[in-house]
């Protein structure tokens, strides 16, 4: 029993990271129908920017861990600008073309960010600092032992999801963004600049991705290829939840983390990824539009 709880707890921690990246993917997919393959690499690049700023800030002694949190916030802002820029410069021109073309452009961006990161920062994995709160000995709750890092990652992810939820449901800007994703034409008629909302969506998505990147970096170490596995799992999580739905991305991410961990513990680590994807395909066969996805009726 305690092994089960232990497995679920560890799975939840990794799953929460998948959930955050899946959220970033869904944010873009909902408004443009594009699966952004560059999501992980943009997050990785922003994490490197955050890392170089943390190195720069560590010279000063600031209270309250501010030499971690200030660069963290700055990197998120830089990531948002990067995301907005990418949308405006390279994705706007292919908006009218078939969706597969936009997907190819994001694949190009994937390689581009990867190459630039290897050039600027090198391919060797580096340790990434975590705030002092996340460090130290593991906590034990009853029979279960959980590392502080896992708890920190999980609580940060929950915080990000909560903020995003509040923003999208209770602010005017958030509602406008959702409206633009839903129906662009109607949106323009009531005076919401749909194009600008699209750019903003990319900015938010990139910012959320950057936060996820800085959360996983202490676990997987900082390197140009660190986000690839996470990205694949986040895609799977987003699809599992039903690409259109933000709560679906969270449910999908957490479920995937738990399934992967349980398969690793009970079936064998040599087959954990296979079993996780087996479950996804099974779920998709029963519900072709994911767990929380809506069925779209198409016209001829």
């Amino acid at each position, binding site marked *: 029993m305690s092994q089960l709880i232990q497995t679920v707890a560890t799975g939840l921690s990794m799953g929460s990271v998948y959930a955050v990246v899946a959220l970033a993917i869904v944010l873009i*997919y909902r408004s443009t129908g594009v*699966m952004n*393959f560059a999501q992980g690499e943009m997050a990785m690049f922003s994490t490197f920017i955050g890392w170089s700023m943390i190195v720069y800030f560590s010279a000063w002694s600031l209270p309250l861990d501010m030499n971690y949190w200030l660069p963290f916030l700055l990197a998120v802002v830089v990531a948002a600008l990067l995301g907005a820029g990418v949308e405006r410069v*390279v994705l706007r*021109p*292919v908006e009218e*073309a*078939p969706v*597969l*073309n936009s997907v*190819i*452009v994001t*694949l*190009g*961006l*994937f*390689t*581009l960010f*990867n*190459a*630039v990161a*290897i*050039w600027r920062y090198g391919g060797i994995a580096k340790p990434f600092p975590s705030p002092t709160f996340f460090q130290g000995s593991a906590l034990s709750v009853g029979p279960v032992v959980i590392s502080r890092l896992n708890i920190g990652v999980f609580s940060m992810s929950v915080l990000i999801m909560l903020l995003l939820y509040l923003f999208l449901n209770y602010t005017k800007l958030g509602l406008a963004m959702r409206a633009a994703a839903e129906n662009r034409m109607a949106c323009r008629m009531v005076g919401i600049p749909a194009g600008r909302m699209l750019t903003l969506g990319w900015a938010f998505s990139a910012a959320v991705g950057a936060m996820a990147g800085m959360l996983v970096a202490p676990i997987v170490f900082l390197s140009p290829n660190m986000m690839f596995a996470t990205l*694949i799992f986040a*895609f*799977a999580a987003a*699809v599992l939840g039903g*690409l259109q739905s933000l709560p679906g991305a969270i449910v999908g991410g957490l479920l995937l983390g738990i399934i992967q961990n349980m398969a690793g513990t*009970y*079936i*064998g680590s*040599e*087959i954990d*990824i*296979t079993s996780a*994807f*087996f479950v*996804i*395909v099974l779920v*998709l*066969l029963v519900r*072709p*539009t*994911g767990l929380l996805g809506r069925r779209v009726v*198409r*016209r*001829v």
Partner: protein
Amino acid sequence: MARALPRPGVLGLILLLVLVAVFPYLYTWPFFDAFLDPFRTFQVTRFGLWLIILLGLNLLTGYSGQISLGHAALVAVGAYVAAVLMSQGFMGHDVPIAVAVLAAGLFTGALGFALGAPALRLSGPYLAIATLAMIIALPQILKLETVSFAGQQLHVNIARWTGGVQGLLLDRPKPPESLKDLVTERQWLYYEVMVPAVIMTAMAWNLTRSRIGRAFVALRDTEVGAEHMGVNLALYKMTAFALSGLYAGVGGGLFAYNEAFISPDSFEIIKSITMVVAIVLGGLASITGTVFGALFMAFQNEIVDALSGLIRRIPSLSALEGYIPTTASDFEKLRGAAYSIPLIIFIIFAPGGVAGLIRQVGNSAPTWWQQWRLRVTGWASVVRLTRRRVEPGADAAVEERQDPEEETRH
């Protein structure tokens, strides 16, 4: 009515076939030896391999509209079937290469047909992820020895066949004894790949212009509409998967024969994704486009080398050293960018790929060239009947075009 001369299109095709047939011997001829060498033969062999594999993918994604990110998994299955047959034989008998490759194609085709069944319920990104699952799970499955489930050890010894992590090492391909003096190893390999490649290209060409090909295009453009026109959706979708499996299996079998070594790492996720990039670059739903896609796959490294060489020529600003790439090692690290920046620009400005670009240039060519082309291809009379009169000053785009190639475009 008998024709005195074959039409230019047919003539060009015959010339191309002759070129393909004699290519491995060209480097021994005067004039050609200046720019050809045996290594080129090897490269063109690689091109033939990619052509077979990409044709299958384009039939599935370009013509039928089913996005597959797991095509490399089918290629891997074909490669392993052929490799196991060639290295371990079948029931104590040696299996010749042609039989092994054919068996690989049929096996993978059947597998593709079976995989098509779950794909009936999925579409777009959902299908993409389900197919991605194949290529992600594949290395783990190929290395499988035992599985413990609920505390019990189950023996599922797949690694016994596939060689597990070490992979399978085959004999180097050799020409048969009777032809030993005529062809070298490389030339033999070239024909082993190019003959199936030519046959399968012709097959795809005919297929896309047949009932099956039209049904594929119809179900891609509108599933409901196609169903109303009497297209059996389930059957044709599964046929599309089976055909792409057949091509992937033959391509994979030849790949194993060509490389003489395969391991789970020969088939990576990124390669599977690059295949989709290649068919979009070449042009979806176009055989000509697939040829360009295969050229891209085969000469990728050479293209990147040439492009990064070009960038290096741009005079760099020494004041910005450290901020912009200036040294040779910088460019070595930026190889990925040398490939992705042109890729992005190309996709933005040529959304139809190379095939679309060619079509565009053909359409905007001067009238004399158009008329000549229509006359020599025998379409002039059809055009005269259907073309609407365009008033001077009216939008030229209104003009109806009759182009046999255009029918496959949506």
